[in-house]
């Protein structure tokens, strides 16, 4: 479920960084407004708890596979949405840094997928609604399970949306969603059962913890209103992003095209490259294949499939030299590394 940098484009990663960063700033402001000193160590230690609990696996009956805790919903129930979101964000950041579980650029996506949907959608709009005023066990199990499933499904949907709009994976959106939904239905069910199990365990042992957390509704604007506002902002950002992503598959290249008059060079290069110097230039700047967003794309200075007939000479040569050159560069980098290391140990 943790997205990697390799599968997202800078436009998607950047947008989600901005969205998640805004959410963190907003939640931090809310937590500060609550001004509950006691909460500072509690949040920190609960984050570590989620971490530790995730490392214990249990066997899922009749399947032979194992599951573990996600934790967002437990945090929301115990801490309220804003603090829970901050804790979730910090857990994901540490996972990205220590275990490379989810990339740095993808961190915004991951925080949004796993934190936002659980804390700001599933918790206030589903869990809270079902629980209502009374807190009995049966209702708790139903609420936690449904909220767990919906939170995770929304997150999975987010993963699919972000991956597909990045355009690195070939998976079509529909297939991806169809793959993700059933898997996360199962994971969400398990997550919901664990959440309700743990919460009802705590209720039996120490009822005051959960009831106290339930009573503390954040001051100021209601949870629902802010959640809706944030959702609207996210949808807007997403819409802007998807337009950006579909119109220009690659933000940086698009910017390059806008800023440099590279098209000219390319088109004159396409005039059969009569001038040797010009041909050399196209070889030196081989990646600037902006001229088409053709799905066939171009590898290196490789002409697109349709142009093969017109450019028979370069075709095989370019791919071979790409291979040879790639291997040589790798070798060079390794040599530089070894040289540096030797110097380090000698020093």
């Amino acid at each position: 479920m943790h997205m990697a940098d390799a599968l997202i484009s800078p436009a998607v990663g950047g947008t989600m960084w901005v969205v998640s960063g805004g959410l963190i700033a907003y939640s931090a402001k809310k937590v500060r407004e609550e001004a509950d000193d006691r909460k500072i160590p509690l949040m920190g230690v609960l984050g570590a708890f989620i971490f530790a609990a995730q490392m214990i696996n249990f066997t899922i009956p009749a399947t032979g596979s194992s599951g573990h805790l996600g934790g967002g919903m437990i945090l929301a129930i115990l801490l309220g949405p804003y603090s829970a979101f901050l804790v979730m964000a910090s857990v994901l950041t540490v996972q990205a840094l220590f275990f490379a579980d989810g990339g740095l650029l993808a961190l915004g996506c991951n925080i949004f997928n796993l934190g936002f949907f659980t804390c700001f959608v599933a918790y206030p709009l589903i869990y809270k609604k079902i629980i209502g005023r009374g807190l009995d066990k049966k209702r708790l199990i139903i609420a936690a399970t449904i909220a767990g499933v919906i939170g995770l499904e929304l997150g999975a949907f987010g993963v699919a949306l972000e991956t597909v709009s990045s355009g690195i994976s070939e998976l079509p959106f529909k297939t991806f969603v169809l793959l993700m939904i059933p898997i996360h239905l199962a994971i969400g069910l398990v997550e919901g059962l664990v959440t309700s199990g743990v919460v009802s365990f705590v209720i039996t042992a120490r009822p005051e913890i959960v009831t106290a957390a339930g009573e503390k509704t954040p001051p100021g604007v209601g949870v629902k209103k802010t959640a809706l506002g944030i959702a609207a902002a996210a949808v807007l950002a997403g819409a802007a992003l998807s337009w950006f992503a579909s119109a220009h598959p690659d933000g940086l290249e698009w910017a390059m095209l806008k800023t440099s008059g590279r098209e000219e060079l390319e088109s004159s290069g396409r005039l059969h490259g009569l001038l040797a110097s010009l041909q050399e230039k196209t070889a030196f700047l081989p990646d600037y294949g902006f001229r088409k967003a053709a799905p066939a794309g171009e590898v290196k200075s490789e002409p697109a499939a349709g142009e093969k007939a017109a450019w028979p000479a370069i075709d095989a040569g370019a791919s071979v030299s790409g291979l040879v050159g790639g291997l040589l560069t790798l070798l060079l980098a390794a040599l530089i590394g070894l040289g540096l290391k030797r110097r380090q140990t000698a020093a």
Partner: protein
Amino acid sequence: MNKLGKNLADIGYMDTLAAGDSPLHRLDPRAKLLTTFLFIVSVVSFNKYEVSALVPFCLYPVFLVAAGKLPAGYLVKKILLVSPFAVLVGVFNPALDRQILFQLGPLGISGGWVSFLSILARFALTVSAALALLSITGINSVCEALLRCGVPKPFVVQLLFLNRYIFALTGEAERMSRARSLRTFRPAAVSFRVFIQLIGNLLLRTMDRAERVYRAMLCRGFDGHIRVVRFSKIGRREIAFTLGWSVFFSVFRFVNIPLMLGQAVTGLLK
């Protein structure tokens, strides 16, 4: 040592690496953070069929590993450990994109394979850079850098707390699960019922601990504000590091060096 213990040792080892001393370790964390971020953005900004132009970028993680005296084998193992997600999503590309992109002798290579290879290359580059960054910086310095870059303080404090108590609580979880596995005939399988009780108890202990921590903080004059020590500064070295690598990244981004090199070599052979 069980899996939990190993995970714990893993985090501890990263901290040990970060405590090392090299010119790289001494750089201001902000410079390293920014440079690594630029690196990741340049790597992922290529079109999805790009492979050869990605290769020069490996210079950056190689540099960090070599100049920071990091154990390369350990980092490679960590990269392989987290690779399943990228591989799983990318592995569909060869099946879905069958258009032949280029011909290598009799072998036609489809766009799907090229883009799959590209995903793997991106993955290796971004993950190794991120891991190397943490190993030469350490989480405390990363937090300091975040704070100075304007990240809200409650979040940074949360990160610091988390880093501090991961050890305490993972240790607690490890002891609990070891105690369970010593008293059962099937040490490997934790049933759902037992799992809930384990986690529930861990949660209760956690909340008690939070209360104790809070009291201990009050005893030491905690007034609702956490102060984070700051001692680094941006100097000539930092500017040189970030600017130098930015120049490299932009050259790598816009000039396909391996292709030029390959053309030169194959040209000579002809």
